[in-house]
């Protein structure tokens, strides 16, 4: 069983690695292209996966993953269940600010009414913030890519004085406890 470990690999010089996990391959590719297109002063590698656990064959070539993003499509309960089941295969150290949820499709009118509350519960129980985005237009993708690049810089330790855990406590999206009502 290949569990994704935080610190078992050496970091590379001026490089950060982000892993996007989601059931919709085209969404993953769109976001990864926007991230790569954006100007960054450090090297970025993007790894895409549909679910965890990851295949063992890639264990050696895979670099240290600095940021994990779970993409959940609010129109499909399949993507939420996939994200939930993938959480078991992550080293607990990731939950100190290196895991984020990205919810897409919030503007859709066919929204199933219980997906968003379950997503919020999941994010509360794992102490990981939820970001909302739509990947339809170029400008949307650009803004999401920029946010993730900023988060990635901090999570990879490229910003002196800031760390992922520090950022987690500052972000408004990070829920305080699982019992609180989500702010409306």
């Amino acid at each position, binding site marked *: 069983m290949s569990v994704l470990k935080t610190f078992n690999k050496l970091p590379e010089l001026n490089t950060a690695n982000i*892993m996007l996990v989601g*059931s*919709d*391959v*085209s969404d993953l*590719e769109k976001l*990864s*292209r926007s991230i*790569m*297109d954006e100007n960054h002063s450090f*090297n*970025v*590698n*993007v*790894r*895409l*996966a*549909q679910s965890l656990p*990851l*295949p063992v*064959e*890639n264990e050696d070539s*895979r670099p240290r993953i600095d940021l994990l993003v779970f993409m959940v499509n609010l129109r499909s309960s*399949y993507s939420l269940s996939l994200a939930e089941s993938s959480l078991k295969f992550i080293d607990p150290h990731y939950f100190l600010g290196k895991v984020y949820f990205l919810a897409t499709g919030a503007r859709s009118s066919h929204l199933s009414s219980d997906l968003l509350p379950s997503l919020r519960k999941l994010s509360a129980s794992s102490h990981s913030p939820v970001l909302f985005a739509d990947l339809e237009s170029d400008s949307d993708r650009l803004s999401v890519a920029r946010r993730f690049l900023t988060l990635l810089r901090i999570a990879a330790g490229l910003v002196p004085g800031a760390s992922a855990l520090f950022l987690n406590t500052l972000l408004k999206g990070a829920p305080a406890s699982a019992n609180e009502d989500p702010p409306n």
Partner: protein
Amino acid sequence: MEDSVIPFLEKTLQRIPSSSLKSILNEWGFLTAQQLQDLHFQQSKHILHNKVLAFCEENGMRIRHVIQLDMIYNCEYPNKRNWSVYQFSGQEDDALVLNMTEFSQKFKVNLKDLLRHVSIGMKKCEDDAVWIRVAWGDNFTKPNQFKPTYVVYQLQTPYVFISNLNVKHRPLLSQALVIATKHDEIKEIQLRGRCLKSLKDLVLRRYKQSFQTHQLKPLQERNSPERDQGIVHEHAKRLADLKEVATQTFGDGPLPKLETAVFKLETKFKDPENRILTNRPEPFRCAVKFSSPSFLESLKSLVTLGVASTPVSPLLSSIPQKARNHFVISERGPGVPSTPAP
């Protein structure tokens, strides 16, 4: 000009989109060159239509001219209609060698014999198809031009595509067609859709079918641009496998465009936990309907994305081969139903 012509012309003109109005009016050929020049096609649709109406009045338009215009529009945009496919059987020897005038003569005479007030228009389009437009009245009222039936008879084949046919008029039209084309009978096959070209391709087996050949994988490195080099798929092997399964099941090229697939189940209910419904003598009727703008393409992409489990059920993957999209599954197995399906 007769009273009924104006609303009919208005309705027909309204349906034509502005982008092709010029070409359709040119093809129609009813307005003179001078009048066509007078029309400025950048003006609003309302003004244009009024001008066209005025010109048509000047030229003394009759119903048959508007029928021609309607037929030109429908030949151009056949995908706005729902088509059902019918097949002739039992042809006589010289049935496939069709003389156009003889056919149209026989058809018109036959139909007019059966029903006094019908209005028939015929047109031979490209791709070897004869378009027939029938507007139905009955023995006392004039034909209703607003709900015509369209028939596309594909020459050299035993297939006819019919749209908008009332159940009442079906025997009349069938009889006229069968006699005019020198066949014995006509039967509806369980294939329906909107895209006329796809229906033709399916029925004539013209689309590229999937063959089990060894697919050579193209060189990847040269094609991917600079920025894609940082992006790595973890499950790349699995994705490639799924893509291969999808191409094996559905073939490489474009799939015919069908809008629905309907499976009517007439099997016995089988659930050991449910005592009430199982073990009843009569079958449990239920219908499963798949619908999508292009159902086969979406099924193929579901397989590629891994959302649909493989192997794909042969009920679905054999649809292009069987050229049907309405099935009845009974106890003995899928296939032709014992009672004629509606």
